[in-house]
């Protein structure tokens, strides 16, 4: 299978008044056709920065320091703004956190879907409305003709998120990037939305990059998971493998800190220390200050990728 998205040794910094923030360093990741890959990390891990960078939507203060992002055959970093704009919405789509704020509050929902269709799908104007209503129906919004005329404030958080998904999928993209799509939604709504994303993903053979801080959520819905810490990808593995046999100390501790139906309070592990300051000079492994397996070798040089199996990769000198 050819990979839909390949990120190779991607590094990105932010130039700020208080110094250069090394937000991403040597990030490598791939998403195959039709698979759901989860990017899991805590706040400050760089997962959202990565998502925006893939779309070419990074902040004005961001500077790419190296690496490649290949989408299909297209080099996303070398492409012109025109080429990127052409691809966004049509071949790559993104859904965001806080659906109500991501939608235009003064335009009807149907009109917003039509905007996407008008821009990217070659449809005659009279067909736009029909397609928009179809898109709403596909995300299982009840009574789509009536909802077509609704404003975002009239819809619940879950409905708004479905509208965003409808907008994202309107042109049947090859890649969907979902940035914390269910944060802020009730757990019942979360389950419905995630089921929808998964069904649409598999149904349309669409690749999905799911950004989340919730390891449990990624564990249920993703095929593979990449764990990020302080701008590094520390481990990538198929989901069952990652959950059962984590190789990176951070992954192990993250798993042990995440409450599951079978956890106990005493069994919950906390991760000592805190995120390093990304403006300072940092050791090759950014987790070393908090790691209980730290050895001198960890500080020597850039960490290589270790393959534990064909698909299980970890960046650690002393993997578990």
């Amino acid at each position, binding site marked *: 299978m050819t990979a839909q998205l390949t990120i190779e040794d991607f590094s990105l910094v932010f130039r700020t008044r208080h110094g250069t923030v090394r937000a991403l360093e040597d990030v490598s990741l791939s998403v195959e056709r039709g698979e759901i890959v989860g990017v899991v990390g*805590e*706040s400050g891990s760089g997962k959202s920065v990565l998502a925006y960078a893939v779309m070419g939507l990074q902040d004005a203060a961001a500077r790419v320091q190296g690496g490649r992002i290949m989408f299909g055959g297209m080099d996303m970093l070398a492409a012109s703004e025109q080429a990127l704009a052409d691809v966004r919405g049509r071949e790559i789509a993104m859904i965001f956190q806080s659906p109500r704020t991501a939608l235009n509050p003064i335009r009807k929902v149907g009109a917003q879907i039509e905007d996407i269709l008008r821009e990217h799908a070659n449809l005659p104007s009279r067909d736009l409305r029909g397609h928009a209503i179809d898109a709403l129906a596909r995300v*299982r919004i*009840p009574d789509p003709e009536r909802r077509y005329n609704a404003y975002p404030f009239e819809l*619940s958080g*879950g*409905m708004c998120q479905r509208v965003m998904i409808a907008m994202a999928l309107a042109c049947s993209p090859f890649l969907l990037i979902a940035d914390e799509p269910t944060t802020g939604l*009730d*757990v*019942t*709504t*979360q*389950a*419905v939305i*995630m*089921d929808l994303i998964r069904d649409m993903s598999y149904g349309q053979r669409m690749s999905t990059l799911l950004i989340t*801080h*919730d*390891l*449990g*959520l990624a*564990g*249920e*819905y993703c095929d593979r998971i990449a764990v990020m810490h302080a701008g590094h990808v520390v481990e990538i593995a198929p*989901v*069952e493998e990652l*959950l059962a046999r984590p190789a990176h100390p951070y992954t192990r*501790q*993250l798993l042990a*800190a*995440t*409450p*599951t*139906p079978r*956890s*106990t*309070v*005493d069994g*919950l*592990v*906390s*991760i000592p220390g*805190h995120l390093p300051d990304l403006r300072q000079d940092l050791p090759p492994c950014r987790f070393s200050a908090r790691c209980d397996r730290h050895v001198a070798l960890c500080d020597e040089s850039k960490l290589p990728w270790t393959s534990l199996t064909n698909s299980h990769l970890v960046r650690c000198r002393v993997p578990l």
Partner: protein
Amino acid sequence: MTQPLLEARALTKRYPVSGGKRGALLHAVDAVDLAIAPGECLGLVGESGCGKSTLVRLLARLIDPTDGHIFLDGADTTAVSQARFVTMPDRARIQVVFQDPSESLNPSFRVFDSIADPLKRLRGVRDHAKLVAQVHRAAELVGLPRELIARYPHQLSGGQRARVGIARAIAVEPSLLILDEPTSALDVSVQAVILRLLADLRARLGMSYLFVSHDLNVVRLLCSRIVVMYLGRVVEIAPTEELFNAPRHPYTRALIASIPDPARRGEVRPRLDGSPRSPIDPDPNTCRFYGRCPTGAERCKTAMPKLLPFGNGHFAACHFA
């Protein structure tokens, strides 16, 4: 059966709705009966709009109920208004740890001032040396390093702010601590620390907890009994493991089935779609869950189900439980 520490009977809160029909009322909390035993940790769950925040504020005596009573050790705290309750000695016995650490600390107060203020007001501590000693004791109990006490909230991390919020609440030695989503704004690694701290504090200080959270896995960790609310009413109460293993109310079942569980990958589970009905002037004879419930019989439309006992402290409000 020992007297409960806190007991709510037929607790109701209705808000007038502006812009709607004249006299329309929003039923935020409707005829809630609840009891918390001394030393117990009671969980409160429900989706947004179910009334748990309003219930928390009623029990904390921040607002006055429209109807019903709240008894603290048998004494009716609702006999006085919330404005008067502020000055009564019982005020110190119920304290709250709030959700958002960035909003729950006064930005212009140092940590010391935030913790000292309730000590001054509620415990009447005037002597500066005593005040300092008690603030330090509270900080120590929550594991807050002493050098942070002189700082302002914006100079602290999320986890540190959460600790300050807890220190402030326990400084006055409350009997009941209400925790309103205390860890939902925190990273998972920090959450683990705070949860262990809370469990530890309860064991050491013997407080009761009312633990409100949308994260069922977290509630399961600390609570011995759980109350499930839906649209202002209590729909189920049960001991924790029994609630998770054998829920009786269809809403609870859907709630538990929605918890992400990697062990049940790919399983098709019952999903609860749609949204709750309007809490404005609901029909008093129709079950609040009717229409969204997979079961939907005539009976559900004509008679409001009562909270019935099923043995072992398990109650459910459903005709078909």
